[in-house]
């Protein structure tokens, strides 16, 4: 390989590196247990409405797919994707977004935190 070619490849590599998203802020829920969260998602059958990777049978199309959720910018198109807000939203969406189709689901604060933790682990 000629020196010019090597330089060209090196340059291309640097350009492609520039195209990649920077390793930035990744939300996580300190008190939440992602493994528990997955069980809660399965137990409450959230998969009726959502595609949730890792939860068996979760392939609903009523609500948004939740893969790679940590990279979403907004929750429900209106709130910043922040752990505390997500924890509130999974439990009681209608109080935050009155037109939403997602009902308030009965669960404990801890379960909501676990669910948020799992969604951020995807």
């Amino acid at each position, binding site marked *: 390989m000629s020196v010019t070619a090597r330089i060209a490849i090196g340059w291309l590599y640097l350009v492609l590196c520039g195209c990649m998203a920077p390793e930035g802020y990744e939300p996580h829920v300190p008190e939440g247990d992602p493994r528990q969260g997955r069980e809660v998602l399965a137990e409450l059958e959230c998969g009726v*409405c959502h595609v949730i990777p890792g939860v068996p049978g979760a392939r609903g*199309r009523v609500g948004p797919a939740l893969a790679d959720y940590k990279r979403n910018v907004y929750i429900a198109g209106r709130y910043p994707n922040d752990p505390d807000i997500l924890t509130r939203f999974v439990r009681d969406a209608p109080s935050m977004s009155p037109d939403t189709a997602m009902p308030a689901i009965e669960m404990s604060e801890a379960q909501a935190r676990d669910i948020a933790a799992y969604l951020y682990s995807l």
Partner: protein
Amino acid sequence: MSEQHVQSVLHSAPGSGAELLEELGMVLYVGAALIFVVVMGLLLHAVFSRRLRASARAWVIGGGIVFPAVTLFVLLTYSLAVGSAVSALNSGTALQLLLNCFGIDSNARIPPPLPGTLRINVVGKQWWWEVRYRAADGELRNVPLANELRIPVDEPVELMVSSGDVIHSFWVPSLAGKVDMIPGRTNRLVVRTSEPGIYRGQCAEYCGGQHALMALYVVAEPRERFYDWLRNQAQPARAPTDPFLRSGYDAFMQGRCPECHTVRGTPAEGTSGPDLTHIGGRHSLAAGVLKNHIGTMAGWIAGSQDVKPGNLMPDSEIHTGSQLRALAAWLESLE
């Protein structure tokens, strides 16, 4: 909440016909294993023993003809006796004698239903169960329900099973054997248990694409609770009081829901889908597929074709998000 039992023939409910079936199964498994071991032992003996037995002929006649004939005859009569005791179809004197030979008192287990026995009609449909109670009590005549049976404990209950479309089979392994649901025919099954709890059952005859998702729960309860429940089920739905539930009621009535579903006490009188008068009190949605809470209710209404593709209920596409929530909340309030 009562205990939910494992759906298995190896977990038969005490006092049920399934208990006799489990005993029969055990006799067969253990007996077959013993015979296998003995035959293999004899085989090894024949291969490795140098001595030629003078009594080979006796072994052939004894082990090859007499033993199987006797064993099979005993097992056949035993299994026939169990079958009769389980279905309680017949209790002629000759049969009674045979049952007693095997220590089975068919009358003690499942007495032939007396006049006044609780009778439940169950009609299999693709892919759900239409249930209709016909209690002797005049007030409780003809209570239509769906996808869930409740029975009083320690009381024989007569199920009259049939089909509205193709062949299905009613099977609650912990309570009784399978009984086919055949179009144009009504089969009879008597179930009974002495243990309260929730027993799962499912369709046991391939009946189309969603056969695997055609399940139901049988809830056995003490007698008083059962009759309180049945009296409540006979009542029409209460009118919604709060404005949110009212908007759910309106969404139901304005949508296409009443074309197929009945909610007694309202103008909704469709009959091709399950009766929803008390759907909020059931353990499952979509015939044993989903747990019953407001989230699964909303998801099932909006995405029934995702959950159970090909079922007759179309996805609801006309409700706004808040209408869908209100609709689910209203249905959940119908207990």
